[in-house]
């Protein structure tokens, strides 16, 4: 099938690029948007992350080893929720995987 301007296909490409940095299964964190987390396009981003990364389970929490961060999800001037994490993979459009630093 041809891939056109389908938003699901576009987002899938982004998250597929991140999948190599993630474990093959188990839970993976997803950083909540600071504002308007329930906006339709943001809900879609989260759902497509889950759709792409199955059989991993993408959960909206940050107390996990890996956390996925959308480009506009983190606060601009440093996000306290990402303290103790470091970026390990970045997609073309700026979606990132953060991994918890080893103590």
């Amino acid at each position: 099938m041809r891939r056109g301007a389908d938003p699901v296909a576009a987002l899938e490409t982004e998250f597929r690029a991140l999948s190599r940095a993630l474990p093959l299964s188990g839970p993976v964190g997803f950083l909540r948007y600071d504002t308007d987390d329930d906006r339709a396009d943001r809900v879609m981003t989260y759902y497509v992350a889950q759709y792409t990364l199955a059989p991993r389970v993408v959960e909206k929490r940050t107390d996990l080893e890996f956390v996925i961060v959308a480009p506009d999800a983190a606060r601009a001037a440093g996000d306290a929720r990402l303290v103790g994490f470091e970026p390990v993979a970045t997609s073309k459009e700026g979606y990132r995987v953060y991994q918890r630093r080893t103590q």
Partner: protein
Amino acid sequence: MREAIALLLPACAIGVVLYRSAGVMSARAAAASLALALCLGIGFSSVVSTALIFSGIAPASRAFVLIDVATWAIVAALSWWTTSAAKSREPKAKSPKPKAQSPEPEAQGRAPWLLSATFGVIAIVALASVVASSMAAPHGDWDAWAIWNQHARFLFRGGDGSWREFLSIAWSQPDYPLLLPASVARVWAYAGHESTLGPALIAMVFGIACVTLVVTTLDGQRRWIAGALMLGATTFLTQVPSQCADVPLACFIVATLAVTFGDGLRIPPPGSRIPGPGSRIPSPGSRIPSPGSRTPDPGSRTPDPGSRMTSPPCEKWCSVGIARCSKAAGRFPI
């Protein structure tokens, strides 16, 4: 096109039962049987796939496809054998030719071909519309990728048992049945990868089967009108490429009604003289009038004792009851 092979294999195995049981078929009955075989094929193959996955056989493994192919080959062979055995037991002298089981309705009106031709044109346009929609949104509608195809990905990718993880995702409706996800995972197993063609093809097959069953079940010219109305409805045309479970569910409901009330799929028992409820042409030698008959049978007042002998009473009364329902349904415009 391994995806198409995956869908045709169980349909052919089930088609053996339908075709061999009916014997000689009209084109209309053959189309109805094919549509029913496709529906049942996808339905039963999803059960087999679910059983294999639950047994720990991953769809991504070669063993899954081999066992699936072997299962349907055995089903086809058993179907052939049982129908052959049934035919050999059939008394040849008494067995009527099933010519009347699916009579072609006589041409009515001045231009009987006009409605069927119009339906054909609408069907081609509808198919083009569905294909275009599927290409524009290859992952389907929101519910398709958030629920159905997502569950299919868990089943296909989670061969190590991690497919169960989808049960913990509350927003993805983990309690929804696995008919569609297991079918999609099975098609991907045959394709060897997660092609977007797989779920799109399943959606189209269900859509085509749904319309085919309606067109082959109704009688006269109204079947073309009903089919054209279905294809002309934007709801149907948006639901088919959405890859959701609405059209498959609708298709099974239509199939149930077609098998219950339709004449095209009715298989007369050997020696039975009771015509099908919707039959317009009485079967040879029948004295009991067809409830939907438009031409009065001269011998309709005299029941044939032979028919009572060959048909159990319950079957006769069921047949009459269904016939009355069918007749009542026929009073409605469409």
